[in-house]
């Protein structure tokens, strides 16, 4: 043993030893006790102040606790007899336990406790497909998150917790409505037939949004084919493995956590004033020589504060109402969770939990808008025969209910009509006290209060049961069975409501919005999934060779049933019951289906001296969705790793503490984009045609051309990775580069439409995605302050290398108004491409416009209209025409350079963390109804940013001249492409943990209170009316929320 230099530790230690001789003896003689003393210090011999010491004696049932003093020293007198164990813990350090000590009467027992900082843990075990592995031995690209990343944030779904924390994960939202969840992609695009990553929760495929995030122990995100190939045909878009909690402590542990959040919308457009709107509307009408929609009398009425004036049988509304502000102020969210767990010494472990979350929507004050979810979970495991037979069961139940206003036609939902049709001139009530309505459109307030209700209830019951059998040494055989039952019930009640004009009730069975007669739609579906699996794992170490072999088979069956009833003309218009309808029951669709998958899989791991690592996976899947010709798919993968840091030449340096190079190749499959019976010729019965003698005559139609020649999409991923740890792993870096190729993507066959029937997709496409990910974590502790910074950055770009069975030169859809987004997949371009005209500002004089080529014969362009550029023609040269040859690539809506920065610190019980998340490159296309208030007859509002339109005095305005019905300006063009890069303070937390003094029996073992803010602020160049995180083009959606929340976490 090396001689250590004399330092503080030794001085104190020596003092402790000496003190024993002077005063210890007397005390012991009287009380038959012994004294336990110790010094708690760090690696660099700094004393740790306030470390908890827990002293236990199982035989005598003695428990006591104390803390180290300012010198890092603790001391306690304990009765002798029995075996003692001592656990010393300190925040930010790994706890240490000493056990099995018999104390001598009167003696002083002295402990030297060196605690190691809780840095990146190399021994971390990571859950992988059908097993687990030490992180150091991994050869694939896997990111893991643990419970810490989930606790104490008011998150709706674990996806929210993954955002910004997992490199290579793109999270997007379509809206912020209660009950809507973010979607995500792992490593960008994989296929045009995307079905999302495969989510496996405790061994069963499931829905992340149904898991209570407080129940999650860990999440593994498997990104490359080496780690996903064992899931075969469904793993092409990555696999997420969720493991729920199991008891750890041998004492009953009760945990209660609660959170209350106040939420306000992030970014919303601000409507103009009534007067400004009237002026703009008149100006826009005059520009096309149309009559002023607002006569002088209307402007006069606005000045006098009148809300509406009669105009024949209709109203002209003249109010000043900010509908956006009125309807979209704030909402609340609450969450409560309780769990009880215990791990008994005899092998029985249990973890029971229940959680409740309630989210009120923005519109809650006026009508149905909210989401509730509650969960129950029971995780029980026990040893039936110690070391031979072990049983584990995980059962959970989730019940969620979403309340909303149903709309027959989804785009006419409440925020949309608020944004597009509820103009500032429209009061809530007209001068006669009836709800005001523009044209036949809805009044959002009336719709909320009287328009009916929608309700979606979903219940999911999951059960998974495992029997582990250890017949011989090193062999484990597991039988696994699981079921998932999901029942969904939807009720949508659209109530008739009245529409009034100044002269009385208008169009008698008037209906709210576009919905039609009052009607009720009720649907029920249930999905039953069953699986059985049998796996065997054999592990063997012979000298320096370490093997592990896994083999297994599984069978999965799903049956889905659906039933729907719809009736109109609801008597009395009060109760949403089918039997109150006056029409026949219609639309009773029943698209039931079944599918089965039989699979066999195996994995071989081999390592030599823990230096050279090798892994091979193989899976074969047989799916009922294919004809017998193509029923089986094979998915192999190979990976290798070299732990350079284990080599002798790396031993004598102090900088690089860990270095591993990884490489993998593999294939996975994708079966999305397929129907269930596509290879079978079918006649579908459907529809209704009302012949008088057969009022609901159905028809029979061929369902599409069957295809026996299709097979799985094969996605090949090549991955190169490196893991480096510096300075005793204070700094760790992981970097990966990948090339993902979907080699035979299923896509629509380009067939002349004279075939007259929908044609099956064919394995004719190819999509290649290249990308990289880097993540870095720095974790350290300076005296009492522990801190960590982690950063991740990733990028990927896809390219549709082959998009058709025939070679077609890229042709872009003809002129349109923003409909080219996304749907226009074009060979040679990424999937999120936008195509349109290039532009060069506006025509500044009528003469400029008059001499400029028109689109076709489009007339009447003038100063203030957008100038489209003639960049090409039929011969590839500008031809003096603006036509489809001038359409070109103008942007990409896929987020690029996604980053997350996480900063955390703690000090004396206080903790702080911040998550900054963003996207460095993304294009956002402003749909025409976001930029042209008077383009459509149903448009009835204008926003402040729309006041910035072209005039002679404002030549570089945001919008072209203010004019009614000029389709010219709303062609798809780069004029409407905005930069949606953003950086957002996604989460900020400040908490304080109270760790009670270790008295005899602490009632509370931990209490943490905290403030957490989500989406607190952001920076983006995007028009400030729209949220850059939304993936919609108009922006007129249920806004996403800033949330301010307080919470607590209590354990006892």
């Amino acid at each position, binding site marked *: 043993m090396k001689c250590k230099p004399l330092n503080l530790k030794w001085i104190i230690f020596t003092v402790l030893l000496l003190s024993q001789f002077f005063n210890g003896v007397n005390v012991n003689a009287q009380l038959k006790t012994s004294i336990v003393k110790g010094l708690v210090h760090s690696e660099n011999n700094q004393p740790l102040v306030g470390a908890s010491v827990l002293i236990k004696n199982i035989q005598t049932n003695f428990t006591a606790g104390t803390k180290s003093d300012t010198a890092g020293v603790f001391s306690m007198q304990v009765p002798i007899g029995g075996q003692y164990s001592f656990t010393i813990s300190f925040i930010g350090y790994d706890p240490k336990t000493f056990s099995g000590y018999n104390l001598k009467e009167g003696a002083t027992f002295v402990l030297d406790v060196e605690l190691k900082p809780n840095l990146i843990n190399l021994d971390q075990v990571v859950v992988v497909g059908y097993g687990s592995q030490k992180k150091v031995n991994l050869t694939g690209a896997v990111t893991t998150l643990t419970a810490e990343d989930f606790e104490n944030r008011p998150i709706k779904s674990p996806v929210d917790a993954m955002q910004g924390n997992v490199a290579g994960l793109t999270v997007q939202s379509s809206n912020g409505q209660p009950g809507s969840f973010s979607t995500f992609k792992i490593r960008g695009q994989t296929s045009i037939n995307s079905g999302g990553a495969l989510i496996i929760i405790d061994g069963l495929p499931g829905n992340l949004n149904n898991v209570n995030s407080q129940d999650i122990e860990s999440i593994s995100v498997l990104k490359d084919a080496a780690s996903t190939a064992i899931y075969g045909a469904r793993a092409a878009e990555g696999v997420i493995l969720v493991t729920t909690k199991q008891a750890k402590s041998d004492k009953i542990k009760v945990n209660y956590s609660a959170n209350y959040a106040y939420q306000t919308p992030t970014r919303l457009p601000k409507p103009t004033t009534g007067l400004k709107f009237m002026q703009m509307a008149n100006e826009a009408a005059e520009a096309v020589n149309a009559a002023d929609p607002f006569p002088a009398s209307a402007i006069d009425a606005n000045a006098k504060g009148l809300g509406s004036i009669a105009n*024949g049988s209709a109203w002209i509304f003249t109010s000043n109402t900010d509908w956006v502000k009125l309807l979209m102020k704030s909402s609340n969210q609450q969450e409560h969770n309780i769990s009880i767990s215990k791990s008994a010494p005899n092998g029985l472990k249990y973890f029971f939990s229940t959680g409740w979350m309630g989210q009120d929507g923005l519109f809650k004050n006026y009508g149905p808008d909210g989401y509730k979810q509650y969960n129950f979970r029971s995780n029980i495991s026990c040893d039936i025969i110690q070391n031979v037979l072990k049983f584990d069961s995980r059962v959970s139940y989730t019940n969620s209910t979403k309340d909303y206003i149903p709309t027959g036609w989804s785009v006419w939902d409440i925020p949309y009509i608020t944004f597009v049709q509820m103009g500032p001139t429209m009061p809530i009530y007209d001068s006669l006290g009836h709800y005001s309505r523009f044209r036949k459109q809805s009044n959002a307030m009336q719709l909320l209060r009287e328009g009916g209700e929608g309700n979606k209830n979903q219940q999911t019951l999951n059960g998974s049961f495992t029997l582990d059998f250890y017949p011989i040494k090193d062999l484990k055989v597991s039988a696994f069975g699981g079921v998932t039952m999901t029942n969904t019930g939807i009720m949508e009640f659209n109530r008739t409501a009245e529409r009034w004009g100044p002269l009385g009730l208008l169009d008698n069975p008037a209906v709210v919005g576009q919905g039609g007669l009052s009607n009720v739609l009720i649907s029920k579906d249930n999905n039953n999934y069953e699986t059985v699996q049998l796996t065997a794992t054999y592990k063997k170490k012979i000298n320096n060779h370490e093997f592990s072999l896994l083999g297994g088979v599984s069978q999965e069956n799903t049956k889905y049933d659906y039933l729907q009833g719809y009736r109109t003309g609801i008597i009395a218009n009060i109760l949403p019951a089918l039997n109150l309808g006056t029409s026949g029951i219609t639309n009773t669709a029943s698209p039931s289906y079944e599918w089965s998958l039989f699979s066999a899989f195996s994995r071989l791991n081999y390592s030599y001296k823990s230096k050279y690592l090798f892994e091979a996976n193989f899976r074969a899947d047989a799916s009922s969705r294919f004809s017998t010709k193509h029923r089986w798919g094979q998915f192999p993968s190979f990976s290798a790793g070299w732990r350079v840091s284990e080599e002798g030449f790396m031993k004598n340096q102090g900088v690089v503490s860990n270095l591993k190079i990884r490489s993998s190749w593999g294939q996975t499959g994708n079966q999305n984009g397929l129907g269930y019976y596509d290879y079978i010729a079918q006649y579908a019965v459907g529809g209704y045609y009302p012949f008088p003698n057969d009022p609901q005559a159905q028809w029979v139609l061929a369902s599409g051309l069957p295809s026996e020649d299709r097979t799985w999409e094969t996605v090949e991923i090549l991955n190169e990775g490196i893991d480096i740890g510096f300075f005793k792993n204070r700094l760790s870096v992981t970097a990966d580069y990948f090339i993902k190729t979907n080699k035979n993507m299923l896509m629509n066959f380009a067939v002349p439409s004279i075939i007259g029937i929908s044609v099956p997709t064919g394995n004719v496409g190819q999509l290649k995605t290249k990308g990289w990910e880097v993540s870095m974590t720095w974790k350290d502790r300076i005296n009492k302050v522990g801190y960590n910074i982690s950063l991740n950055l990733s990028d990927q770009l896809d390219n549709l290398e082959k998009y058709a069975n025939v070679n077609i030169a890229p042709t872009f859809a003809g002129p349109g108004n923003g409909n080219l987004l996304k749907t226009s997949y074009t060979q040679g371009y990424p999937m999120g491409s936008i195509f349109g005209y290039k532009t060069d500002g506006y025509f500044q004089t009528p003469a400029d416009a008059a001499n400029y080529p028109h689109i076709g014969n489009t007339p009447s362009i003038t100063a203030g209209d957008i100038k489209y550029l003639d960049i090409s023609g039929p011969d590839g040269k500008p031809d003096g025409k603006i036509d489809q040859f001038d359409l070109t690539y103008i942007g990409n809506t896929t987020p690029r350079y996604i980053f997350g920065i996480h900063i955390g610190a703690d000090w004396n019980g206080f903790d702080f963390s911040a998550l900054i998340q963003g996207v460095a490159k993304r294009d956002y296309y402003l749909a025409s109804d976001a930029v042209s208030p008077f383009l459509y007859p149903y448009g009835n509002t204008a926003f402040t940013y729309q006041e910035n339109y072209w005039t002679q005095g404002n030549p570089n305005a945001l919008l072209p001249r203010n004019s009614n019905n000029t389709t010219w300006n709303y062609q798809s063009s780069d004029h409407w492409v905005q930069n949606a890069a953003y950086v957002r303070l996604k989460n900020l937390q400040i908490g304080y943990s109270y760790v009670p003094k270790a008295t005899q029996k602490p009632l509370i073992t931990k209490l943490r209170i905290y403030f957490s803010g989500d989406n607190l602020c952001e920076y983006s160049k995007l028009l400030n009316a729209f949220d850059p995180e939304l993936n919609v083009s108009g922006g007129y959606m249920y806004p996403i929320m800033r949330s301010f929340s307080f919470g607590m976490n209590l354990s006892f």
Partner: protein
Amino acid sequence: MKITKYIFILGIITLFASCAKLDKYPLTTLSPANFWNTENDLRMALNSLYMNDLPDNYMDSQTADTYGTAANTISSGTYLAPNTDGIWINAYTQIRTTNDFLTNYSKAQITDAQKNRYAGEARFFRAYFYFWLVKRFGDVPYVDKTLDLSSSELYGSRTSRDTVVNKMLDDIQFAINNIPQQSAIKSDIGRITKGAALTLQARVALYYGTYFKFHTEVSTNLKYKDLLTLAQTAAKTVIDSKEYSLYKDYRNLFLQAGNDCAEQIMTMRHTSSANTSNGRARSMIYDLTFNPTKQLADAFLSSDGLPITKSPLFNGYVPYGTEFSNRDPRMALTIWRPNDPNYQTPAQPFVCDFRTNSSTGYIFKKYAFDVLPSTANDILMRYPEDLLIYAEAAYELNNSISDADLDISINALRARFITGDVPIGGIAPNTTTSSTIKALPKLTNSFITTNGLDMRAEIRRERIVELAAEGFRYDDIIRWKTAENELPTSLLGIKLDKVTFPTITKPLDANGFVIVQAVSTRFFDKNKNYLFPIPLQEISYNPKLTQNQGW
């Protein structure tokens, strides 16, 4: 011991493999093998065609007779060749349904007469949809069997228009021969009848008879006179069958009350229980798909049978609504007459609201305004078409028509209204205008000569006003070859009456009529626009498809 364990494990694996049932069959669809047995099977196999029969109400927006909320690209000449074309796709989809039917129907175990009746329906529809294609695109690929991905016909070239027309006429003749008259299948109202097949024959024959007569630049092997004779004969057969008659109530004919009256030959039907509705009622009033222009309003004769330019009874346009006095009774039943009860609030007189009703100042009354959603039949064929075809074919055959032929056609139509009657279901005129209806006088050869009129123009006028807003007008100006003159004109609305509309500022022409689209923005290229472009995508998928001239 160990071996037993392995056998045990192997056994479980075998058990797994054996319970892996991977052959799954559809739970909610039929297979072709267990279909095509009964009469009802055949009917069900045809029913979707009724649902997808391309109601053509929007077609009038492509003419100068109407104007919507914005300039129509077709009537303005600004239409660009699109990648895909809804009519192309829809028509070929329906044609496949008919071909699938015709491949399989004979398997049914029913009488030949029954089989042939439904085969007749299928062939009727096949011709009906080819008519859509051929009049829009000219030569089109002719497909009369179900193709699959390996069929060489997929990549064939366009079939000549002559051939397609002949095939259509064959199909229609088969339908005429095998489908019973309406009176023989009374309980089957709504299905195709012999009358419908004859009317389609007359329609197609008239279309190509006049098309080839006036489009002398087009080469064809079809003789226009043969076609006109066929049109005349078919129309006469319908007239002589006495299966159909004029419905007295011209207002309710287009509303729910007129559903299945003796005038309706083929309709698209709607009910709330089938959850479909007639979109026209809504589109006329709310969506402003199209509103009448001055051109259409002026087409209605004065009650003395003379055009307004010649009639002493015409009182001019101002004050607002004056133009409706002393006019063809159909005028106030086609266009909403000012001061008639309003459609939303019948207690109030109707005054056009330029803001919410119409940009022309006129608004249609035909088809508007029933209860919404409307379940009035969408009329696809009605008896007057046969009368008008008869008159036009008779005239175009010889450039003359006898008074006897006028009597059984145009004059029969004019006799729907009787002088002195208030039209049934029509709105009783208010006190400011004439309280009695004056039916139009007979159209005769002597009336034409006496008044210096043109017989062809008057026969066409009768068609324009009788079938206004029913989807015929665009086809008419194409086959008459008048589009090149008629479309590049200013679209005008009402004469703006400053007393009624003191605050409305609209661009006006020299005579004070509202200009809704100026002539400077309207085009028609006679070398190009008589046909539509073949969708670009079809050409790129099948290079053998050539593009139409000028596109």
